[in-house]
């Protein structure tokens, strides 16, 4: 039996470290199981890091939102496209995909924001913005 700690991958979107899976290698494309971000794996002296291959693009935020909803079993409603436009506006004006319904432009409010990742949708039926909804 090995005492080695399982390796982890740092996600630059949700700032968490998730478990490195068998078969992954330098350059593998993986999805962060916490926020849904698509990442390309890179080994650094400090450990594995995920890079954002489509950073700052519409493709990135659409794929992240879809993947997050799939991971959590959440759904979207008719506000989806308007909220995506808001997220794109945040990226243009404030440099990343922060929650379009809030004033805060800090990593914890990168979509899906920390309160959402902390269970707001399960508690309230939706996230603050009404982007992610609990399925009926």
């Amino acid at each position, binding site marked *: 039996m090995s005492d080695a700690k399982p390796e982890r991958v740092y996600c630059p979107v949700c700032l968490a470290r998730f478990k490195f899976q068998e078969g992954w290698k330098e350059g593998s494309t993986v999805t962060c199981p916490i926020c849904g971000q698509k990442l390309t794996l890179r080994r650094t002296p400090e450990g594995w890091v995920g890079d954002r291959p489509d950073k700052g693009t519409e493709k990135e935020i659409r794929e992240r939102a879809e993947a997050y909803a799939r991971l959590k079993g959440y759904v979207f409603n008719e*506000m989806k496209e*308007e*909220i995506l*436009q*808001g*997220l794109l*506006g*945040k990226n243009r*004006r*404030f440099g990343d995909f922060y929650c*379009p*319904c*809030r*004033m805060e432009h800090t990593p914890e409010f990168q979509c899906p924001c920390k309160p959402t990742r902390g269970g707001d949708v399960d508690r309230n039926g939706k996230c603050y913005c009404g982007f992610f909804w609990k399925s009926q």
Partner: protein
Amino acid sequence: MKEKPKVYALSTCPYCKRTKRFLEEHKIVYDCVDVDLLADNKQDEALEEVEKLTGRRSFPVVIIGKEIIVGHDEDKLRKALKL
């Protein structure tokens, strides 16, 4: 003419956009502050004002006379504007 309605909004917020669109569709002349686009000192002032009026920092906020409406709510807008 009474005072113009005032809207505090975020430029990226889809609900704020719906509120602005609703007012425009009903030919209501209003003042609007996109709080996220203000310079830092003006932004602090606006946020303090929003918090004083509503007790929180949620958008949009619409002030119509003595009525303060938080969130996009067409029924409340209609009632306050007597539409």
